[in-house]
């Protein structure tokens, strides 16, 4: 029974309005307005003609598209064997393997870029292989998880049936299993293409002038060349391509979904005989691909002049290279800045996201509009968000570029959708009768609502806070536009240090990357452990 047939006990209008106002204002001020400004700049005929006339625009478009396609195909191919191993077999360390893949997936882009620099010989640092490699490391988890989830539901009898009909193992896979996996492969491919098409941090670290994605080009034209119009056109162009892509893939997936009836995960077997070798090599191979770069990061941070030393770690606190000569990047300062920024961004994101969840559940149908609105930043690249904010808040009375809170606000904008998604499900699943019970016991509407809603939001908001902190720590796209010199965050400092010549700087960059990787992984693992704990609790409570 829905609570909206309950007009006598509705929350007062002023209350709902007061709760909805902050998230709505936040969205309008920091997302809609900057985006409108950007669109206004980018939709000028002159700017469009100018941009499309330039040869390097097409070069960027071409490189963006083909590297994304190549990264996607490569990741799908390499992910197939480990997906098969984890979906069909049970073996020691299976869960740890999946956790490792996922942990890498949530690493900051700059860290993965740095890890690739660390593992490859200097001659390959800026090759296209470095870029493809970084994208594979990142996205292997997507293939293994998405494709594995379908694969574990396909009965092996299907392939056995094909075998009785005279198909060899290879033939059976190609003619039976692969077609059934195609929707999952397409879904994983679409996600990976989306990520790699908008790749920014990886390309900033590993790319060169000729190897630049649209994202990087937007940043370059806006901040390095001062061509705001051109940058805006490119940002809108990318948005249009992405919108078309998402629409197309959603439609393609809908066509496929009801063609196979899946019945839930089948029991996994222990590998026997030759299978053991195959399972071990596919899992080991995938593990090596994602872990070796990270280990190289740590190893290289402790190697400065061909010999092992902790010089880079020890010198993190001081940005003086020689007496009187400063580098302009203060590694330990960046660590402090990142911590403070993450703290504020988390606070902003949780307050705004929390109020949004409350407003959305209280508003009922019209709450859906706020819900959709707050998801929009998720579909807009962080670069576009940062760029829009940069060109909007640059003149009085809203000249906020020097304000300490602008970077945390940018991060919060990126993080709010995650906070909302983490808590909204819980908010919606609360039985309206619980509130009715409070009302029959004499609680007035606001009190009845608060008693039966707020205690349940505490846990999911804590999860959201963890996600927001992890996002803020690694955020590079929006920060590239909004960061002020002197208050660089870790990803900015890492990118700068990697760009300098000098082994000590590189080693410092690797050390900072290792710190950032450890921090992000720790937070995500805590969030994960919290969620698992909650599931167990729920289970224990049920009679």
């Amino acid at each position: 029974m829905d609570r909206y047939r309950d007009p006598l006990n509705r929350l007062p209008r002023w209350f709902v309005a007061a709760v909805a106002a902050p998230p709505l204002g936040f969205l309008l001020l920091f997302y809609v307005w900057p985006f409108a400004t950007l669109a206004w700049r980018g939709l000028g005929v002159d700017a469009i003609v100018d941009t499309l006339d330039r040869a390097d625009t097409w070069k960027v478009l071409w490189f963006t598209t083909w590297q994304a396609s190549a990264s996607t195909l490569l990741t799908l191919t390499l992910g197939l064997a480990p997906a098969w191993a984890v979906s069909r077999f049970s073996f020691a360390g299976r869960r740890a393997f999946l956790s490792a893949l996922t942990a890498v997936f949530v690493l900051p882009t700059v860290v993965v870029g740095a890890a690739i620099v660390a593992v490859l010989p200097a001659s390959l640092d800026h090759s296209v292989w470095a870029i493809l490699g970084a994208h594979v490391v990142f996205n292997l988890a997507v293939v293994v998880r998405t494709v594995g989830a379908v694969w574990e539901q396909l009965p092996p009898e299907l392939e056995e049936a094909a075998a009785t009909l005279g198909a060899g193992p290879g033939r059976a896979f190609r003619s039976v299993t692969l077609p059934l996996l195609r929707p999952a492969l397409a879904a994983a491919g679409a996600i990976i293409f989306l990520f790699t098409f908008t790749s920014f941090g990886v390309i900033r670290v590993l790319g060169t002038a000729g190897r630049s994605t649209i994202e990087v080009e937007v940043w370059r034209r806006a901040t390095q060349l001062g061509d705001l119009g051109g940058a805006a056109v490119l940002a809108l162009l990318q948005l249009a391509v992405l919108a078309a892509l998402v629409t197309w893939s959603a439609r393609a997936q809908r066509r496929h979904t009801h063609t196979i009836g899946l019945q839930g995960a089948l029991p996994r077997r222990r590998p026997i005989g030759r299978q053991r070798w195959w399972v071990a090599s596919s899992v080991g191979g995938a593990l090596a691909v994602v872990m070796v770069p990270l280990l190289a990061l740590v190893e290289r941070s402790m190697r400065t002049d061909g010999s092992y030393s902790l010089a880079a770690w020890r010198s993190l606190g001081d940005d003086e290279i020689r007496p009187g000569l400063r580098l302009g990047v203060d590694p330990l300062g960046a660590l402090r800045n990142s911590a403070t920024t993450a703290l504020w961004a988390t606070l902003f994101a949780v307050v705004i996201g929390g109020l949004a969840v409350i407003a959305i559940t209280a508003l009922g149908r019209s709450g859906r509009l706020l819900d959709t609105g707050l998801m929009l930043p998720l579909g807009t690249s962080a670069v576009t968000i940062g760029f829009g904010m940069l060109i909007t808040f640059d003149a009085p009375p809203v000249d906020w570029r020097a304000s300490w809170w602008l970077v945390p606000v940018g991060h919060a904008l990126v993080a709010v959708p995650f906070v909302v998604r983490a808590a909204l499900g819980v908010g919606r699943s609360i039985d309206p009768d619980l509130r009715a019970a409070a009302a029959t016991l004499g609680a007035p509407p606001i009190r009845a609502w608060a008693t039966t809603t707020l205690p349940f939001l505490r846990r999911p908001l804590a999860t959201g806070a963890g996600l927001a902190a992890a996002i803020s720590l690694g955020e590079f796209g929006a920060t590239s536009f909004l960061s002020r010199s002197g208050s660089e965050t870790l990803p900015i400092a890492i990118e700068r240090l990697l760009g300098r010549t000098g082994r000590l700087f590189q080693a410092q960059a690797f050390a900072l990357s290792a710190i950032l990787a450890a921090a992000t992984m720790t937070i995500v693992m805590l969030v994960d452990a919290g969620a698992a704990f909650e599931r167990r609790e729920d289970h224990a409570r049920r009679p």
Partner: protein
Amino acid sequence: MLGVHDITISFEGRPLLERVSLALDAGEIVALLGPSGSGKSTLLRIIAGLIVPEGGTVEIDGADCTHVPTHRRSVGMVFQDEQLFPHLSVGANVAFGLKMAGMAARERRRRSDDMLELVGLGGFGDRQVGRLSGGEAKRVALARSLAPTPKVLLLDEPLTGLDRELHDRLADEVAAILRATGTTAIWVTHDAAEAAAVADRIVRLGAGTSS
């Protein structure tokens, strides 16, 4: 004590209750009996103020309260699935209505202990709601609703989902408690034996029937 006059409501365009009237004397226990879908729960919710009827009035203690919000009606309700507050202890659940009525903390504590004693759960005050058995949860729900001495207590299939033996024992116990406290109550059930066992009077609610 309670007067329901000509209540009419439809659900998705189909009439569910048509001009239903019902009157209860103080201290009377009426069983509202009917098959599922006959609108018994809806009638309870109309009396509680959780649903507004399309026509008709609800009177409690002689005052028309058809448009009075639930929290000012002084009706208690025992829900089919208890709806205990999972984040509060058993004692805090029972004391919730007393707190809403503005009772002082120490007095609240004493009264909630008394209520738990009354339903046979003396000493349960500090327990967690999530760890109660099905029968215990029903008793806590009853104690919670009775604590603020509502003018009318509404019980919405309060014993559904219990095994036969526990069901029969609880039915007798709950009826005895209601009588002992002189509570005016409407007890909704689809079980004729249960209705006969607990009520002073049985009112049947079927398609098109009114009483």
